[in-house]
């Protein structure tokens, strides 16, 4: 049964009508369900092996042009496949596969990696796969309940190189990491295609309340980065107050922070904003990218690649 669409709130339209070139396509995409997608867990199988199994029982899929381990399967469910049982696929939104992918080159040699807000573990287990189970990933989350899902996914995928911690990041012990992923808690606007209820409770006050925490988290995470290390700050929201403004805050607070360009072959991104309403951002912020749902048929996302 097709779920009734939850319309885009008027105030949401007003906030974002000027942040992309094609607002009609943008708003329409937000009320269109996401395709079912998965990531091949290379700890258990190769993409070729999974595709050949899907072929054998006639399950239709398409390879994702920008990530060799990602598949879309349209509206066909994946939860009752052998591959799901065996852990050779991990059901995951395409947009959430982006942050580990953007860190891929650094992961090859990294010894100590922090996934700062890790539960339920989609990105931690992807980092683990990209590191081929070597090195150490510290997967931290301050929500003890959500850590249960992280544990389950770590076990199921065979991600041996993960250690789980349960700190409020702001009180994390002082130490240095080669690579940090800070996928910050946010107002989650970009997940509305998966969770239409987002528009039912959407209100700008959620943006303002999370932005204060994000400013603290980004500075703390940056301070835990080794000299020469790289950090990815990401959110699944469109709100500039949680994205460009947070990166701008870091650049003001830490002189040794610099931004690097993000390019993903066969994937369309848009440069971050240089201003929004009355706010003007440091021009270096525009090296960060926005992921709009209508450009690649994904959820919404924001990413900034930060070097120390």
């Amino acid at each position, binding site marked *: 049964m097709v779920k009734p669409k939850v319309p885009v709130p008027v105030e949401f339209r007003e906030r974002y009508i000027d942040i992309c070139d094609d607002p009609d396509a943008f708003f329409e995409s937000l009320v269109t369900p996401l395709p079912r997608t998965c990531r091949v867990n290379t700890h258990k199988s190769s993409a070729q092996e999974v595709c050949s199994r899907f072929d054998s029982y006639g399950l239709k899929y398409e390879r994702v042009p920008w990530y060799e381990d990602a598949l879309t399967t349209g509206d066909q469910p994946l939860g009752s496949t052998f591959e799901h049982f065996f852990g050779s696929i991990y059901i995951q939104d395409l947009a959430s596969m982006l942050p580990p992918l953007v860190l891929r080159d650094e992961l090859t040699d990294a010894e100590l990696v922090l996934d700062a807000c890790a539960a339920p573990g989609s990105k931690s287990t992807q980092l683990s796969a990209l590191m081929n189970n070597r090195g150490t990933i*510290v997967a931290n989350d301050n929500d003890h309940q959500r850590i249960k899902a992280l544990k389950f996914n770590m*076990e199921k995928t*065979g991600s*041996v*190189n*993960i*250690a789980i911690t349960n700190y409020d990041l702001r009180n994390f012990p002082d130490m240095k990491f080669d690579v940090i992923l800070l996928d910050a808690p946010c107002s989650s606007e970009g997940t509305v295609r998966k969770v239409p209820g987002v528009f039912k409770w959407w209100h700008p006050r959620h943006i303002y309340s999370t932005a204060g925490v994000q400013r603290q988290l980004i500075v703390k995470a940056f301070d835990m980065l080794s000299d020469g290390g790289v950090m990815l700050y990401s959110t699944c929201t469109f709100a500039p107050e949680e994205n460009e403004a947070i990166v701008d805050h870091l650049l003001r607070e830490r002189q040794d922070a610099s931004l690097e360009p993000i390019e993903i072959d066969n994937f369309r991104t848009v440069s971050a904003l240089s201003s929004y309403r009355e706010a003007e951002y440091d021009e270096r912020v525009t090296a960060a990218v926005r992921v709009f749902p209508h450009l690649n048929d994904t959820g919404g996302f924001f990413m900034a690649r930060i070097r120390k």
Partner: protein
Amino acid sequence: MIDPCPADIRQAVLDYLEQRFGLDPTLLSGYSFWLGTKGRVIIGPGEIPESLSIDTAGILIARVANNVKPSSNLLQLFGRRMSRGIIQLQREEAHRFMQGLDFPLPDYVDVDFDDGYVLLQYLQYPLGCGLLKEGKIKNMLPRAKRLKLEYF
């Protein structure tokens, strides 16, 4: 919370896995060993900073009490590197296993090892752990992993 695994327990697990399944212990030598509650032996990253308070790590590989019971997650991850203690299932029994059911040892299976824990395999896929006892296979798959499959 987990604690460092005592050396004698670590060795007992490695010896068992080598003797029962032919698993080369050096495949696990790069990982740290931990002991959780109820004799749960866990492997995690090779180097974990000492200043961190760890909730848990990696995967459960075995429970140690009077004997060593290997986990299905261990068998799934390292099963392709195992050479003994393997029962190759055909489709019907494989599906029964994945749903969490027990079943008699199929007639088509020749067993050249003693009763005890076994790796159940379908095609090239190590499915998980069963207990072979007196001609029957008892399902050791955790409830959370059991699944009725449509695409298989």
